[in-house]
């Protein structure tokens, strides 16, 4: 039942789930809290996320061929494991539902002004459904292909943007007096990294995943950190710290202010960016939807996976329409982001400690 992936696929799954909706408002959130020293805050957030990633990878690595459902049952007993599962299921479900709603709202507000949000949601969800019933391996392959396009796309676009920006907008790079503010901002900037907890539902295979899997996962998170810094710095270089804080869609706003005359085909970069961004959204949403359906299927073993997926998608569509305004959705997103500290930090940390205390890692070897 549990599917396994290669090290590289695991790394790209992380990229797929992490780099999604969050990038849109990233420059605003970072600048609002840390000003031009945002790069430092991002580095700190990356470091913390790398620690989380290491812990989660370790859990999967020690408990070979098991996902969080099996090993939390072994480590904490049935009752607590069930609580954990409910948290994860609700978390993934809400996350992909709200992300699809937000993405549809963003598309409606920026490009397709007359198209109703439900139609956009339905389109997204139908594609996500198709991906989910094809199971993890196919999603991982999509992430590999899309991930590469996304990486090349983001780097090209943001280097191009950076070439148009003004260096003076990026300074002062670091103000020693603001160190406290930088550290405080770390908590806020960690949310765009949410998603690494997906590793808990990927079972590691003895043959495919050797010790190098640690390198793959932590380096990927480090790479995402660097990519984020590039994105934030390029946006600040165009808009300046005073301007960027007014735009929830800072990335769109920046890209729309850039016009590269010498690269005619890139003259309207926002079109290219939108395509890439939607690809990223699709990766994120389908992995999260898979996470939710997968954990549910462990409980409802009698229901066929495809049917379960269908029910979840329909539910997601309905739940996605409940919040009336975009502000409501944002509030829900905020609560969900705080949840990530539980799902990516707290729960894995408990399981990690129990594994260590019970010396599971040594027993298995």
């Amino acid at each position, binding site marked *: 039942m549990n599917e396994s992936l290669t090290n590289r696929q695991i790394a790209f799954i992380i990229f797929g789930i992490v780099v999604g909706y969050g990038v849109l408002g990233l420059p605003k959130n970072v600048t609002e809290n840390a000003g031009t020293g945002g790069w430092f805050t991002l580095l700190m957030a990356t470091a913390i996320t790398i620690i989380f990633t290491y812990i989660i990878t370790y859990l999967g690595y020690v408990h070979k061929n098991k996902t969080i459902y099996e090993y939390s049952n072994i480590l904490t007993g049935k009752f607590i494991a069930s609580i954990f599962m409910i948290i994860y299921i609700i978390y993934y479900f809400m996350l992909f539902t709200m992300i699809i709603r937000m993405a549809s709202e963003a598309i409606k*507000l*920026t*490009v*397709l*002004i*007359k*198209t*109703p949000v439900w*139609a*956009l949601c*339905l*389109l997204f969800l*139908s594609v996500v459904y*198709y991906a989910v019933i094809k199971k993890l391996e196919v999603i991982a392959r999509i992430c590999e292909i899309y991930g590469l396009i996304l990486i090349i796309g983001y780097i090209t676009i943001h280097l191009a943007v950076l070439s148009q920006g*003004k260096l*003076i*907008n990026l*300074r*002062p790079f670091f*103000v020693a*007096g603001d160190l406290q503010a930088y550290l405080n901002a770390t908590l806020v900037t960690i949310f765009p990294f949410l998603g690494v907890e997906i590793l808990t539902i990927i079972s590691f295979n003895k043959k495919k995943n050797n010790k190098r899997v640690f390198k793959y996962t932590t380096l990927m998170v480090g790479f995402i950190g660097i990519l984020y810094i590039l994105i934030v710095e390029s946006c600040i270089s*165009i*808009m*300046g710290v*005073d*301007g960027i804080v*007014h735009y929830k869609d800072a990335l769109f*706003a920046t890209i*729309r*202010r*850039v*016009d590269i005359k010498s690269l005619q085909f890139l003259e309207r970069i926002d079109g290219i960016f939108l395509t890439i961004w939607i690809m990223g959204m699709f990766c994120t949403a389908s992995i999260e939807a898979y996470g939710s359906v997968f954990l549910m299927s462990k409980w409802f073993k009698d229901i066929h996976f495809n049917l379960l997926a269908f029910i979840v998608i329909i539910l997601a569509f309905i739940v996605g329409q409940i919040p009336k305004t975009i502000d409501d959705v944002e509030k829900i997103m905020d609560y969900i982001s705080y949840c990530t500290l539980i799902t990516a930090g707290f729960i894995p940390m408990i399981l990690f400690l129990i594994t260590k205390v019970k010396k599971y890692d040594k027993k298995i070897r």
Partner: protein
Amino acid sequence: MIKKLGKALTISMSVLLLTSCWDSEDINKKSITVSIGVDYVNDNIEFSGEVAKLASASKEEEKAETSDVYKMLSYGKTFEEARVNYDSVNPFSVFLGATRVVVFGEKYAKKGIEPYLNRIDHLYDYRKTLLSVVSREPPRELFNIKVEKDISVGFLIEDIMEHVSSNGEGLYPVTGELLSDIELGEIGYLLPYIGIEEGTIKYLGLAVMKNSKLIGIIDIKKTSGITYILAKEPKIIQIINSSNNEKNKISFRTFVKKRKIKTDYIDGQVTINIDLDLKAQLRYQYYMEPISDEYTKILENKISEKAKNNIEYIIKRAKSEFKCDIFGFARYFRAEHPEIYEKIDWEDAFTKANINVNVNTKIINSSLTDPNAKKKY
């Protein structure tokens, strides 16, 4: 069979859901705006402008292209009212994505153009890289000019400004940059100033904007100091009178190789040091004369002196006449002294600032002519 049906259903679903259905509109059903003029007339906002007249290029080809423009005009107390008035006479919905230029009338510019810049920023279809200019004559008159050199007035203004700025002789401020300046606060900005002369449109100089209100004009002849400081790649032609021969003049093209702006804060006073490294290229002499190495040195000093004077002239005007930092020095000061910047009033600090200009010039080549050639007979 069911599987096939499912596939067919999925395909037909996605066709139905292909979301542009709601937003698609035929190009012939849109009025594509080429240029917009905003002015203030009798307490009313006046929108004028040009709308593209779409026509097939030829009978064989179906490709539509702009060959001519319609004029548009509407009034209202607010932008929205003016738009409603416009919509009530216009058969098609307006598309702003192809707008080349926004022309602000002098009257409107004096009252403040920030509302319209914000409108450009937040209306989806406007390009944020749109060119804004201030016009001496009311925009309505501008758009009535019969253009012979270009497709329409909007294109003409855009092309003139692009030509000027790509030659390194002027600025091409796009709306996005202006918004960044406004958001920074405490600094002013410059817009191209145009007008009608001898029946055609002419670039006249730069309009000085403080708090987004027009407060002064810098004549085109006096703009080189600004170009040296602000243009992306300044290339300014300088003519130096020869000291050996009264009749002779030497024409140079000068480039800025390195531009360094450093700020300091000493005893409660802001100091700004501007260092320019110029490269000068001799284009031609009015009359051929030998140029010795010592004379080259003298010429280099003369060029530096001239550039320095141009810059100092404009800085002096900014400090005393406009009382406004139109060069964006605030950005440099904030980058270097963020904590002091928070405490001081920049406008006041700028007018009292001690600004030093230091120009170094090197003549790099003499355009392949040899003025020192030896003559045999």
